[in-house]
């Protein structure tokens, strides 16, 4: 019967092209506005590492105290002293510190011209913790961390620029005047938002070119190219004084595989902060946090407020379009009350009439969805008018958004047709036939 209902629906839609066009346009414009803003919202609010987001944690220790922290919250990163202390304690199955660095590299084809290239100083556990996929080679090892080796992992894109995409493992690359040995090339991997660098760097900036050994960067006294935050004294005499300051700039991550490990690590943080208090370094009670990936993104307010607002406004617009569609469907269906009476007299049940009109609404929804897809594709170019460029670039029409657009259009229209179709199914055949 579905095919029969669909034939009847399409015939009915062709009979009133103006009414049909109005409904299709209402659905099309409504769904496209929602999908354009949703594509941005999805990119900024999704879980960037769903397979492990509940096992990866950011430890926070308050080294500023209640007078200087923000609303009782510990700072979003660690100073050098605490960061190194936590790593040395090694209380998690995997752990890493991260900070962004900016180095210079020769421009391909011209060894005399240098260009800036950005990456992250990380520890060996970074790669297995975050499931970084490799195209060639592997990550360096924990012993390489200890040896402070001059090892580097390139991104697929950087490897393409520097080595034409060939297997560069074992080759040397010179960055800011220092040689590094390529031990691996990571496959394209850039979780969005870039959760591991949310505090120190933009969550949506250009993807990194390389990952370099953190100890090596410290030895070379290469400072963070991202955010740092200090309280009190802001002038430092030399690198060592900077390292001993209360400025926070190192992003710690730990992997904890069970709730008992999480509880144990939290106890460890409490104990560490208490030790610092007893040692006189902290003049306040322990104030620590241990958030997983989604908790961390929430705390850092990664989703821009304009993304939520625009999604809410677009959804409201879609609802208004649907309300209008309800009215149009009601008018369209009830105009055919006489036909409904005849069908009921000839043996159609109320359910069959209901199904017939829901299928007809589904056809309207499909047409509205197709129009919505065209408008969504066109509207993607205008996302930059609403959002910052680095956010706007995240909006794109992929297979899942195409499917979602069509599904939302069809299901929303069918939902809008529940009442009009119900009214149609309630038509009393005797009244219709008598009135004729």
């Amino acid at each position, binding site marked *: 019967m579905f095919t029969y209902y669909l034939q009847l629906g399409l*015939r009915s839609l062709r009979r009133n092209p103006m009414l049909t066009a109005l409904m299709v346009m209402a659905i099309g414009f409504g769904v496209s506005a929602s999908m354009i803003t949703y594509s941005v919202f999805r990119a900024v609010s999704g879980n960037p590492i769903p397979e492990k987001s509940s096992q990866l944690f950011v430890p926070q220790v308050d080294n500023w105290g209640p007078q200087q922290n923000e609303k009782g919250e510990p700072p979003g990163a660690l100073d050098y002293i605490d960061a190194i202390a936590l790593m040395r304690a090694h209380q998690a199955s995997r752990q890493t510190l991260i900070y962004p660095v900016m180095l210079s590299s020769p421009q391909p084809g011209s060894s005399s011209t240098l260009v800036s290239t950005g990456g992250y100083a990380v520890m060996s556990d970074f790669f297995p913790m975050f499931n970084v996929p490799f195209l060639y080679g592997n990550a360096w090892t924990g012993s390489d961390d200890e040896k402070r080796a001059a090892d580097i992992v390139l991104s697929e894109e950087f490897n393409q620029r520097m080595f034409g995409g060939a297997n560069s493992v074992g080759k040397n690359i010179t960055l800011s005047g220092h040689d590094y040995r390529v031990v691996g090339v990571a496959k394209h991997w850039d979780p969005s938002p870039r959760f591991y660098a949310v505090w120190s760097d933009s969550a949506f900036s250009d993807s990194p070119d390389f990952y370099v050994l953190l100890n090596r960067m410290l030895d070379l006294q290469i400072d963070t190219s991202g955010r740092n935050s200090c309280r009190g004294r802001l002038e430092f005499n030399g690198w060592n004084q900077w390292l001993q300051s209360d400025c926070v700039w190192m992003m710690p991550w730990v992997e904890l595989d069970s709730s008992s490990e999480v509880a144990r690590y939290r106890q460890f943080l409490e104990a560490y902060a208490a030790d610092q208090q007893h040692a006189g370094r902290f003049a306040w009670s322990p104030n620590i946090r241990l958030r997983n990936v989604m908790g961390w993104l929430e705390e850092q307010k990664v989703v821009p407020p304009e993304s939520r607002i625009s999604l809410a406004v677009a959804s409201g617009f879609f609802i208004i379009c649907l309300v209008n569609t309800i009215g149009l469907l009601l008018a369209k269906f009830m105009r055919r009350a006489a036909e409904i009476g005849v069908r*009921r007299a*000839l*043996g159609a*049940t*109320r359910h*069959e009439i209901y199904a017939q009109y829901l299928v007809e609404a589904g056809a309207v929804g499909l047409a509205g969805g197709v129009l919505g897809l065209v408008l969504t594709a066109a509207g993607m170019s205008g996302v930059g008018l609403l959002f910052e460029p680095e956010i706007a670039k995240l909006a794109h029409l992929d297979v899942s958004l195409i499917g979602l657009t069509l599904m939302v259009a069809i299901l929303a229209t069918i939902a809008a047709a529940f009442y009009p179709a119900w009214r149609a199914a309630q038509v009393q055949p*005797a009244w219709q*036939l*008598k009135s004729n």
Partner: protein
Amino acid sequence: MLKMTHLSKVYRTEVVETYALRDFNIDVKEGEFVAVTGPSGSGKTTFLTIAGLLETFTGGEYHLDGVEVSHLDDNARSRIRNEKIGFIFQAFNLIPDLNVFDNVEVPLRYRGMKAPERKQRIMDALERVGLASRAKHYPAELSGGQQQRVAIARALAGSPRLLLADEPTGNLDTQMARGVLELLEEIHREGATIVMVTHDPELAARAQRNVHIIDGQVVDLAEDPRFHTAYAAAAGQVRG
């Protein structure tokens, strides 16, 4: 085939109750051709819609083909309409968007019949009413008489045991009306039970049996004094 006992139909509003049928009794045997006559507003069409399960009744009993129908739900009533009853309306009630073939197909679709059998039945029904060559025409392209023959084909396609006709010639001229009546008589001769509501005494006279309704009740013309005034006046209106 069709038996109503002490049946009543009341339309209620907040201020008034109107009896469309009151203590209504009728028994139509299988294979009968019964004409139901009566003045306007006497309850003829209400009787027909209740007989066709298009409307529920307020009290009494109604047995259709041996089944008491008052407790049937919408699905069961729809199935009985689809399988046992054929309707012919004064206004034809063809669906204007569908061509002749598709109009005749409607009841068969709801029966869940396979396409080849549907096609065979539709073409047989159209052959029978002499409109096989017009299968692809739309109702607006046909005369009134042809439209009513399509409606009859639609009613016949499902091989119903009971044919309910409401003023089947009311919208037709004399010649077309005669053709439609001859078709109904032929269908009756082949064994169908027909109940026909009509204002036309001449048409009623062609049926096997006449049932007269006045004020929502079946009356015996010979004994009911109302007949001599009401029915004579109605007949006079029709003739006039």
